[in-house]
């Protein structure tokens, strides 16, 4: 397993390792989806700080995770995209449309808390 998933209250935090194969990424998606169901999580943070190359499969998978998790009623924030990775992604047209991004874990948590405070999930608390 190349990604570690931590549970912090209602939030799941997935740290992605430097190099992830397509199978690893697919596995990460399955784990996250099941994790959200099982723990009734309201937010997911995917930390990609260690990724130095983001290919189209990885970008598509991240976007897929974001969309599917949203259908399960939770929010996803992708954090830690490095400057050169970000620019390379844009040049490849991988702009992660419709996903929320933040600088790092700290900012990501802040964004989630803000969103959850005003989102419908907060009403159920």
């Amino acid at each position, binding site marked *: 397993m190349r990604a570690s998933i931590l549970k912090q209250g209602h939030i799941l935090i997935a740290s992605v390792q430097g190099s992830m194969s397509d199978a690893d990424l697919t596995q990460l998606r399955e784990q996250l989806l099941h994790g959200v169901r099982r723990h009734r999580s309201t937010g997911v943070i995917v930390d990609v700080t260690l990724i130095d190359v983001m290919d189209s499969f990885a970008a598509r998978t991240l976007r897929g995770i974001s969309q599917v998790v949203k259908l399960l009623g939770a929010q996803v924030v*992708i*954090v830690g*995209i*490095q*400057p*050169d990775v*970000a*620019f390379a*992604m*844009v*040049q490849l047209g991988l*702009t*992660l449309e419709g996903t929320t*991004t*933040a*600088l*790092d874990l700290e*900012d*990501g948590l802040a*964004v989630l808390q803000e969103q959850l405070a005003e989102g419908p999930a907060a009403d159920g608390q």
Partner: protein
Amino acid sequence: MARADRKGGALLAEGAPEANEITERELESRKAFLEFRDADIEHLTEINDVARRYADGVIDDFYRHLLSFEETRAFFTDPQVLQRVKGLQKDYFLELTQGKYDLDYAQNRLRIGAIHERAALPVKSYLGMYNFYLRAVAVRLAEAYQKQPKKGWEAFLSLMKLTFLDIGLAIDTYIASRERTIGKQQEAIQELPTPVLPFREGMLLVPIIGLIDSQRARQLTEQLLGAIRSNRAKVVVVDITGVQSVDSRVANHIVQTIEAARLMGARVIIAGVSPEIAQTMVTLGIDLGRILTVGDLQSGIEHAEHLLGYTVVRGGQRVNGAA
């Protein structure tokens, strides 16, 4: 006074390192355009004797004319300089009718042109001097060829072709020098650093001034994205008030930078978009919906403050309110 001396000194300076080069082919094409042919060389060599006879008179008239105007007088305040320049002028005058108009001749003209340019002799004076020359010679040719007016006229036309060849070369040195200056200035503009300034907690201000080319745009991207990470910025205000125009590649690059910043969780506000740049953006079909643009820097900062949740209150009002 010192200024005039320096000018005089420059007039006598040997060699001009920045003198332009001319090729045999270029010289031939210039001659062809002026219809300067072998017959002209003949005409000119035929009047060599006349030129010799009149040289001193023409040169004296010429310098009397130059010294009667303040602008040109400033170049000849030193009598020694004047004497030396007169000698050189006479050499040139005689060279005009010596029948040797090869590459060396042209190089020499370029060198002389460069010396005048360095001495800051205005082009108008340069042209005026040539005009005076031609008129002085025309009068004397008419005198010398009273009995053969056709011959005198032919010689004068040939001389006119040659002097225009010389003028063309001299003016080129002026233009080349200006272009070098412009080139240097453009380099200087392009090397202007683009500072990334932390403006408030979580806010960066990036003022861009001057020309943006691809290289500078790339540099800007690196700096900007790097600064977002190191300053933990959430909003970046890029002020492009001082940018007159961008080409389509650079505009695209900037848009990509904005997208990349978004992936890093930061929003970019472009402030001070000029009508020309706005036009470029629209012509490019760039999706402006995703780019936050405002008219001026003040609106940009206000917008950024709003995004970050800052409220700016005037100090005096706050004191009043608290009281």
